[in-house]
């Protein structure tokens, strides 16, 4: 499992670049991860999404779907795609320090 140094902290990732321990996460790490995903600055709107996702994982064990974020008025789907271009579910989870979202079949 790849370990990387971020802001002086040593952080573990899985092979697809998702953090393996969400408790090691903080906002500064998020900023670094966001840059790697092509998002220059994280705004309050980004953090509305990130904080809500982390809260749901804490409480329910699974990250909310795009549809759930929309339904609970956290962020409309259209805006979510603008905030995290090209695959918001995965990108937002990555930046939020969460596991890769489970794909369903």
């Amino acid at each position, binding site marked *: 499992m790849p370990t990387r140094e971020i802001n002086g902290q040593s952080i573990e990732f899985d092979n697809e670049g998702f953090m393996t321990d969400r408790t090691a996460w903080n906002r500064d790490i998020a900023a670094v991860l966001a840059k790697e995903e092509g998002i220059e600055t994280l705004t309050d709107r980004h953090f509305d999404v990130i904080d809500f996702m982390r809260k749901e994982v804490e409480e329910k064990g699974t990250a909310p779907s795009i549809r759930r974020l929309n339904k609970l008025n956290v962020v409309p789907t259209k805006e979510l795609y603008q905030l995290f271009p*090209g695959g918001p579910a995965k990108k937002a989870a990555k930046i939020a320090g969460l596991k890769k979202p489970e794909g369903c079949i």
Partner: protein
Amino acid sequence: MKKLLILGAGTAGTIMVNKLAPVLDQSEWQITIVDHHETHYYQPGFLFIPFGIYTKKDVIKPKRDFFPTGVEVIFSGIDIIEPEKNQVKLTDGKVLSYDYLVIATGSQIKPEETEGLVGDGWRKNIFDFYTIDGACALAHFLKYWEGGRMVLNVVEMPIKCPVAPLEFEYLAEWWLTEQGLRDKVEIEFVTPLPGAFTKPKASQLFGDFLDKKNIKLTPEFSTGRVDAANNKIISWDEQDIAYDLLVTVPTNMGDDAIARSGLGDELNFIPTDKETLQSKAHENIFVIGDATDLPSSKAGSVAHFQADILYENLLSAMEGRPLRAQFDGHANCYIESGFGKGILIDFNYDTEPLPGKFPLPGIGPFSLLEETKMNHYGKMMFRWMYWNLLLKGAELPIESQMMMAGKRV
């Protein structure tokens, strides 16, 4: 009298009533099953209707033919489930109380969830094949079609029978070839998934088949809206794809009654224990088939495997014993690949589809993850099995738990 109430008499509800009626003591238990439709549709058959292989009469039978004696059958809509009162209100005004409730209300397409899908183009050059009406309307359209761009779009996951869109593409390619139209049609498969399918080995194989058949694959496309006036589907991030014929697999959702009852998630699927099939919210409610939120495939074969588990656990619950039977996510799907051939996949929560022989290790007669004529016969035989064995709750020559024997890792 104690009461067992089953909501929905589709694949899963019908299997359950047939398994339970013979074993529950009639002097102790009253079994009731509710559904709003009197006709049972063999949904896997819808796939063949657009190409004239089946017609409507090949996929319907009266539900009455499949209910055991001694069971109360009510044809009515379900209005609302009230778990706190252990009762269900029907749309015809009746109120049914229960000791145990089995929810088997399935999943349905909701095209109205996508802006512009149900508008000017609907059933003119936009069709679904997940409903009987859609499949029949598409058959009619194709009869007179002279070609153009045919786009198949899966709007959102999860969908029931996740391989059905691929089968549609393979069959369409075969049918167009037979009609002498293949060179007049561009076929494109547009999906929100990262590839042709989710599980890596199967995704690779299905993707290769698309290539071989000259069907263009566009992955990771999340449909935001349809511009029917200009014949385009448009993604949330503003990519667009033009079509002449749009075959859509719209958002799949659980029934509105589940939403009205406050029992569902954002897609009206019911949070369910993935091993015991007990509802997460209520001890005396169990859920089976497409109505669950399980990460298994939504398929008739899956409902059948779940039925073995639910049967054990429901009887345990009724007798105050712990729930020991565990569903492993087993799914078994025949995939039509066109030109009289098919592919078979067998997998569960933890094991992706692997190559090998099935159901007899080393012998078959079916081949896993491989295209054979025999697999196609398996698919066509499934209809007979469905009506004559599966719905009646009979044993099939397949274990409900997935087997590793016969698979090559």
